[in-house]
């Protein structure tokens, strides 16, 4: 098991530190509840952990890649939506309309990869507005970050389930 963090500034250690701090924050408001938590509480906590994981990863990458910028802006818009609930639908429609207009540029030279590239664009955040070269670049980095995320979360889950 790799519990040693060789490089203190590596992506893995940055993500781990941020994610653990977020987990502490999520767990804090819950004093020792002897009774088993309701399924609704578990679901809420699951959503918060998932959002915290994506947020920690996006913050660890900062704005160096388009997908991290897209994830961060998506997270900020979502938190803004929750606060201004009445204005939510309008701003999301505006952003989607703007993205659709830019998506046609840079896709002329895709060769025979149109269908798969479109699928990939849906999976990688911010992929709609990228040309093929950037999309492949971003995908490589995105996969690397996702594998790091999975590795760290697996390690943490194993540690928690040792007792």
């Amino acid at each position, binding site marked *: 098991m790799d519990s040693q963090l060789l490089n203190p500034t590596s992506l893995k250690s940055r993500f781990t530190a941020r994610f653990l701090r977020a987990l*502490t924050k999520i767990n804090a408001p819950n004093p020792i509840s002897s009774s088993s938590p309701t399924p609704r509480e578990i679901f809420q906590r699951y959503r918060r952990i998932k959002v915290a994981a994506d947020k920690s990863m996006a913050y660890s990458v900062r704005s160096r890649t388009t997908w991290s910028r897209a994830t961060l802006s998506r997270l900020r818009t979502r938190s803004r939506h929750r606060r201004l609930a009445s204005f939510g639908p309008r701003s999301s429609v505006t952003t989607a309309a703007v993205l659709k207009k830019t998506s046609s540029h840079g896709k002329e030279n895709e060769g025979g990869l149109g269908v798969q590239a479109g699928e990939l664009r849906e999976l*990688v955040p911010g992929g709609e507005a990228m040309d093929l070269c950037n999309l492949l670049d971003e995908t490589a980095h995105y996969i690397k970050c996702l594998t790091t995320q999975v590795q760290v979360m697996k390690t943490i889950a194993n540690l*928690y389930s040792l*007792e």
Partner: protein
Amino acid sequence: MQIVSPFSCSITTTQLFSYFAFSAYQLRKMSSRRSRSRQSGGSRITDDQIYDLVSKLQQLLPELRNSHSDKVSAAKVLQETCNYIRSLHREVDDLSERLSELLATTDSAQAAIIRSLLLR
């Protein structure tokens, strides 16, 4: 290439600000893309570039890493990439669920010990 303007009459300042921020981001992206293509001597992306990127992607995929790149078409690499990303998303979901259950049941003292060990 045109930039869309919102048609809604009653628009808040936050929406206006986010719209302008996004269009400024677009303009920056467009100009950077144009200057990049000028440097590469043409607006078309070469097939070699795409081939390099696809083979780099192939090295990251667990299933296709061992087979030779000429036996695997670019379309298959992209398809496998999509499947791999989806499976990674699913793994993250499962791990989040597992963590949420574990957080609920673990004794808080043990949790504090674990956290202090890892955040050292």
